């Protein structure tokens, strides 16, 4: 039994960290997020150059075939540095393109093209079985109507991948369509999220899809796998952010003085730091353990729910404690603290909140 990173994983993690420390400190990141586009294509190209966009793609599809621990090694520093670029969007889209052997995958892995997965339909479509959007058959073509929400990178993508039900298939089969964002009948409302990502709500009004653009008519297995990978990465990001919050808050508490002494000497503050450390340690242990289970091919639905549920819940505790400990300055836009908390909150809300997942744990008895 061993939950440590391999030397290669540790090197990968260190190199990602030092790249971000160099090029993506809080000030640099703030400028990027406040820019018109809201993210940096230059940074994105560098991320692609290191090979990180090929990481989630299997080797036989031309990717690096990264394991779950590999992904954790990368996503923890991404979370600690509040990456605004569309890494999670790519994690969702690239493996799906790989699963249907789509040639456009190469451009995605190179960072020259962006793909977005239009999956979510509002209020946390935590499970593929919640997908309601239907594709109507119209002769040789298909007609899409409905709305997809919180499509990560949905306003910037060169390629939209849309999950919908084929109306004449069995209810539990999901199809995957590929669409250009310029297609007739598509309205895209892009926005920034509280944690500095770009996303979009996308309305489909009688959008016609050619037969060839039905990439798969039974994507559910591949979709679930992609969602699990994205959940792992979201949680690793959050754990990275929690670690950052813990070290920043411990540092602040040991230097900020009130009543003539560092506030860390007040037991109420000290014990809150202790609770933050316990929460962080629990979350990170869960993350590493789940990554090891995934790598061994033994992660169950329950394991994924535990990871997502615990990370969201513990992350909120850590974020709220960090703000409270910082007091007034924690309430501002000016320190990383509030942004790290917002990243954790957003990651919690994406792909099923802690409420949803912890409840699922209760419903799924341990075998």
């Amino acid at each position: 039994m061993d939950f440590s990173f391999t030397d290669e994983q540790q090197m990968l993690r260190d190199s990602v960290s030092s790249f971000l420390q160099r090029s993506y400190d809080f000030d640099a990141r703030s400028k990027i997020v406040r820019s018109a586009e809201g993210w940096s294509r230059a940074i994105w190209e560098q991320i692609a150059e290191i090979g990180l966009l090929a990481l989630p793609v299997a080797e036989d599809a031309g990717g690096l075939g990264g394991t779950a621990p590999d992904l954790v090694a990368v996503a923890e520093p991404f979370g600690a540095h509040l990456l605004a670029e569309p890494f999670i969007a790519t994690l969702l889209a690239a493996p799906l393109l790989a699963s249907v052997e789509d040639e456009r995958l190469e451009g995605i892995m190179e960072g020259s093209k962006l793909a977005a997965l239009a999956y979510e339909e509002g209020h946390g479509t935590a499970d593929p079985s919640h997908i309601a959007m239907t594709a109507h058959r119209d002769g040789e073509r298909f007609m899409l109507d409905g709305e997809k929400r919180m499509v990560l990178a949905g306003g910037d993508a060169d390629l939209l991948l849309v999950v919908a039900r084929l109306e004449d298939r069995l209810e539990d089969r999901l199809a995957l369509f590929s669409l250009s964002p310029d297609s007739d009948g598509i309205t895209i409302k892009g926005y920034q999220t509280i944690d500095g990502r770009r996303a979009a709500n996308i309305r489909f009004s009688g959008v016609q899809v050619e037969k060839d653009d039905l990439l798969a008519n039974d994507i559910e297995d591949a979709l679930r796998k992609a969602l699990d990978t994205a959940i792992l990465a979201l949680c690793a990001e959050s754990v990275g952010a929690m670690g950052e919050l813990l070290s920043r808050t411990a540092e602040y508490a040991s230097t900020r003085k009130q009543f003539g002494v560092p506030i860390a000497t007040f037991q109420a503050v000290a014990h809150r730091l202790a609770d933050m450390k316990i929460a962080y340690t629990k979350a990170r242990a869960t993350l590493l353990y789940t990554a090891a289970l995934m790598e061994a091919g033994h992660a169950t639905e329950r394991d994924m729910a535990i990871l997502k549920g615990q990370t969201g819940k513990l992350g909120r505790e850590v974020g709220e404690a960090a703000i409270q400990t910082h007091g007034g300055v924690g309430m501002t836009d000016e320190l990383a603290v509030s942004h790290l908390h917002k990243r954790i909150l957003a990651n919690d809300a994406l792909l099923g909140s802690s409420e949803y997942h912890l409840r699922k744990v209760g419903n799924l008895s341990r075998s």
Partner: protein
Amino acid sequence: MEIDFSPELEAFRAEVCDFLDTAPTPEIREAGRKLTSVFAPFEQVMAWHKILYEKGWAAPSWPKEHGGTGWTVEQRYIFAEEYRRRDLPPLLPQSLGMVGPLLIDIGTEEQKAKYLPPILKGEDFWAQGYSEPNSGSDLASLSCRADKDGDDYIINGSKIWTTYAHHANRMFMLVRTDNTGKKQQGITFLLLDRVDYPGMTIRPIVGLDGFPEQCEVFFEDVRVPQSGRVGEENDGWTVAKHLLKHERGGGAQSPTLHRGIERIREAAKDTPSGFGTSLAEDPVFLRDLGELEADIASYEAFEKLGVSGHPMANDPSWPSMNKTMNSVLTQRISVMMTRVTGNEGLPLQHEALRVGANVEPLGSDLELVAMPYYLNSRATTIYAGSNEVQRDLIARTAGRGA
């Protein structure tokens, strides 16, 4: 024991409803619906303040001789309930709830005559200059200095977390007038007639919710008259402690919390639980709501004991208990709101939140406000004396009254 349930109260309620249904302008209503803080959008809330003043209802908690309403506790709660039920913006607390009551209690006759009427009428808005960058929880360590010079003080230093200073025309503040004794001594309470004295600079601070609600205020050789002093020189700590009592509690706050629950229940009807029903019918959600509602009901009982003058409320830590409970309940409500909105609360919608904006929100009203409200309300356990400071105070008399 006695609670008034007389039919006359229902007539009063009808009068209140009628007024609140007709008097506010559409902008005022919009400001209330888009509220994401305890501090309502300035322009609209001051307009509403003036309308309430015309009706005689701007300051229900003030003594009648200074323009209060003379209502019974029951009437005050009816007013607060109907007010909140309509999502009208709460009047800003700094003038009406803090410096006003303070002056009523211990101001000079001149100060009362000069300052109370424009506060009541909604003509003046006062900012509160207490905290400093190095004096937060340890407020008494403040160092912003006022040196006597003839009939004036010369102020140097800075204040921070000065809510709405960029909207204020007046300011009350604590300054250091003596450095020789204990830190609580040597503090003086000052009223500033203006916030645009030469040497005064106000810098708004953008909050984690994206809005500039707080400010930093810098003083460089700012000359103000000594006549603005409240109480004796170097006795400002006593004055401030007196005021804190007003700041930390004592209004009819529970209707605001109850209204939060109503909005949550309303929005839950249209929200899927993820487990086959709407949230409004989901047993888990209802249990959590029940737990919160019961706690709000206990807070209401606590508050009514206080307002009605129950002996328990003589406990010196009553205001601290009030502040602690209210802040935590506010945060719990805000969390529950974001639980309803889920990831629909993630988009930043600053433009749509502006009163008078012609931008359609991406989703429902609650989805528009829940996340900024949650983020903003993290401050409730920090401001007006952090909850840690309150617990220190409560612990000092923990065994008393039990």
